[in-house]
């Protein structure tokens, strides 16, 4: 389900880092040796043999990150992102695996389109990438795509991300077929008759600025519907980019009732509120929108207590000229692969809102499990998927610092703390700085 370019596996020793793997229960200063891409030894003063040595005193070594929600814009908008540029950005952000959404041009709704992406990934992907395929043909919401064939062709899951499935009957059919494909169905929850024309969260800020509001209930109503269908069919589902307090409460109740639902949240929804939109900066426009302080608090609480198990960037590159327009004319979406950890470390970990261990788990094992992927872990015999982090380094987010082809970051101009120093993805040193 994951594809990357063929490259020789690395042999290296990471010397003297604080090794922190919350899932394996490791938190100690030690060396990690990788032989031919596999973790071969953990311990003090490991023999380097002839391996490359990374001196990592004062740094943190953790399981590398998994991003379950990336837009690679390929095919169709290679000016905004390609498999090569998007996976290079992922490597720079500490990711060892990403999943790409199928809302491309053409939509990934046939084995032929999926096959050509897989071929490209095998020659250009810097880190392993999986491709979600569309649930419905053309993401048009009327007919199921050939989900079985797409699964056989390597689809990592199914989603009509960006477009909600309006018909409950069709949604039910998609969930039913999940038992055939064995792949997760991932849902963008939005009741468009409530969100139509919406530019930002509906509340005091939208009332004052004059923007048409996109109310929380437009999301939570659809979350409730899809959870009810999942319960009825006894099928798992994954909820994309939750933004609203009501959605978190609905998910919490469903999980307590035993429904196999997982959910993700983005760094921007964890770090910002609708107050930020007062700047009218189009790089703060995304779907779902930034919501109120209460919504943000509920997302943080949900992440903290494990109702929300994954952090996803929803990395959505847009051409500069498409974002350099009035807020209302700008497309939805912001980039995030290269800033996710730093943003969250700065805004949630440093102020003491969420422990570092929780963040590391929600950025790695959590999203991997949501899609049935092997979780990155630091254990002898496991493939090397490692991120080396400098928690003391501050840096300024600037347009010229990105490997992504697009610069529509919601953090431009800001100084953040915590920097990725190296990424090992599937046994290969994919990034070092």
């Amino acid at each position: 389900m994951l594809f990357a370019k063929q490259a020789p596996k690395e042999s290296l020793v990471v010397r003297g880092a604080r090794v922190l793997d919350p899932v394996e229960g490791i938190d100690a200063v030690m060396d990690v040796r990788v032989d031919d891409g596999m973790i071969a030894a953990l311990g003090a003063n490991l023999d380097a043999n002839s391996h490359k040595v990374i001196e990592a005193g004062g740094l943190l070594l953790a399981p590398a990150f998994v991003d379950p929600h990336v837009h690679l814009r390929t095919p169709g908008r290679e000016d905004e992102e390609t498999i090569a540029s998007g996976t290079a950005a992922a490597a720079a952000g500490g990711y060892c695996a990403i999943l790409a959404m199928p809302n491309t041009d053409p939509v990934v709704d046939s084995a032929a389109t999926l096959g050509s992406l897989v071929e490209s990934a095998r020659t250009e992907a810097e880190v392993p990438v999986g491709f979600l395929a569309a649930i419905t043909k053309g993401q048009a919401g009327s007919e199921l795509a050939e989900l079985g064939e797409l699964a056989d062709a390597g689809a990592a899951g199914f989603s009509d991300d960006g477009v909600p499935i309006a018909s409950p009957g069709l949604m039910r059919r998609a969930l039913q077929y999940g038992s055939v494909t064995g792949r997760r169905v991932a849902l963008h929850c939005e009741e468009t008759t409530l969100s139509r024309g919406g530019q930002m969260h509906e509340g005091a800020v939208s009332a004052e600025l004059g923007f048409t509001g996109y109310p929380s209930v437009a999301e939570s109503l659809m979350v409730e519907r899809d959870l009810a269908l999942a319960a009825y069919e006894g099928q798992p589902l994954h909820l994309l980019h939750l933004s609203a307090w009501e959605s978190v409460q609905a998910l919490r109740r469903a999980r307590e009732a035993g429904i196999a639902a997982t959910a993700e949240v983005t760094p921007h929804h964890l770090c910002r509120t609708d107050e930020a939109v007062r700047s009218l900066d189009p790089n703060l426009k995304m779907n779902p929108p930034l919501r109120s302080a209460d919504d943000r608090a509920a997302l943080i609480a949900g992440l903290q207590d494990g109702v929300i198990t994954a952090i996803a960037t929803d990395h959505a590159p847009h051409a500069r000229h498409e974002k350099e327009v009035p807020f209302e004319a700008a497309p939805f979406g912001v980039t995030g692969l290269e800033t996710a950890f730093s943003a969250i470390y700065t805004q949630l970990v440093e102020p003491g809102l969420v422990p570092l261990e929780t963040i590391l788990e929600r950025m790695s094992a959590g999203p991997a499990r949501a899609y049935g992927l092997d979780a990155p872990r630091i254990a002898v015999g496991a493939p090397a998927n490692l991120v080396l982090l400098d928690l003391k380094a501050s840096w300024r987010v600037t347009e010229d610092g990105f490997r992504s082809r697009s610069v529509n970051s919601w953090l431009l101009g800001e100084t953040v703390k915590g920097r990725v120093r190296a990424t090992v993805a599937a046994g290969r040193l994919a990034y070092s700085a």
Partner: protein
Amino acid sequence: MGEIHVMREDLRPPDPPPRRHFISIKDVTRDDLERLMATARTFERSLEREVKKLPTLKGRLVINMFYESSTRTSSSFELAAKRLSADTMSIKAAGSSVDKGESLKDTAITLGAYDPDVIVIRHPQIGAPQLVARVTDAHVVNAGDGKHQHPTQALLDLYTIREEFGRIEALHVAVVGDVLHSRVARSLTQALLLMGARVTLVGPPALLPRGIEAMGCESTTDIAAIAAADVVYVLRMQRERMEEGANFVPSLREYTARWGVTPARLRPGQKVMHPGPMNRGVEIDPRVADDADALIEAQVRAGLVTRMAVLYDLLVGAPAPVPVGEPVGVA
């Protein structure tokens, strides 16, 4: 060639103007509004003279960019600039390179190359004036951006109220109608609150934006609430924004029956305002519009002098010296 080079800097006043732009009421203080109204009053006196043109902004360039239809705002900005002897240029979306798909940014940069002192912009999208301000060196005046702000309308309305009542503080203003789609309602409410007035928004539930009370005003769906106000400010029903199937109100007929401002709903002596253009017989009864207590014509007159004040304030700076300047001979 023997040309005389006059440096731009030589033509500038020694003190920099206090505000670069006039984009949102949120950006200004009560002092700013007081100063602008005082300047406007000076200009009103100057317009009573036989020759109405002042040399104050001679050699300055004011570009009007109008991406939406407008009669009173565009004409009053144009006349305001001319009365102050500035050169003016008016660009309308129709018939310009906007028709050929040019982006706002590129159009603004193109016009910015003429080195305008002020760009006045009206645009259907929120945030357009901020974009123009980012990509040009001109002072930017917002002549209406989508449903967001129309600060010069708010200023002329304040001026009209002040002229009528002699004060704004502690007055009660009811703003009636389609608040949701109204940039006028937003900027006026903010301006009135800044000046210490009380504001009640009145309209159908779907046309009162959720959360609007956070601005510091009250809101109600009960039209009877207007009877308590000193001023009833009637908003235009923006029929062009009432897209099919939105069902903001069941019908215009029902809107008029429930929320139309009629003589029966007003107390004698209550002052009525409307930003124009009016839909007579929809939001406002013709008898109300034509009554002596309507300040609608005074608003139009105030539009000219307050826009002169805005241009003057941005380019010459505050406070306004009196007299503002001697009239020039040729209009």
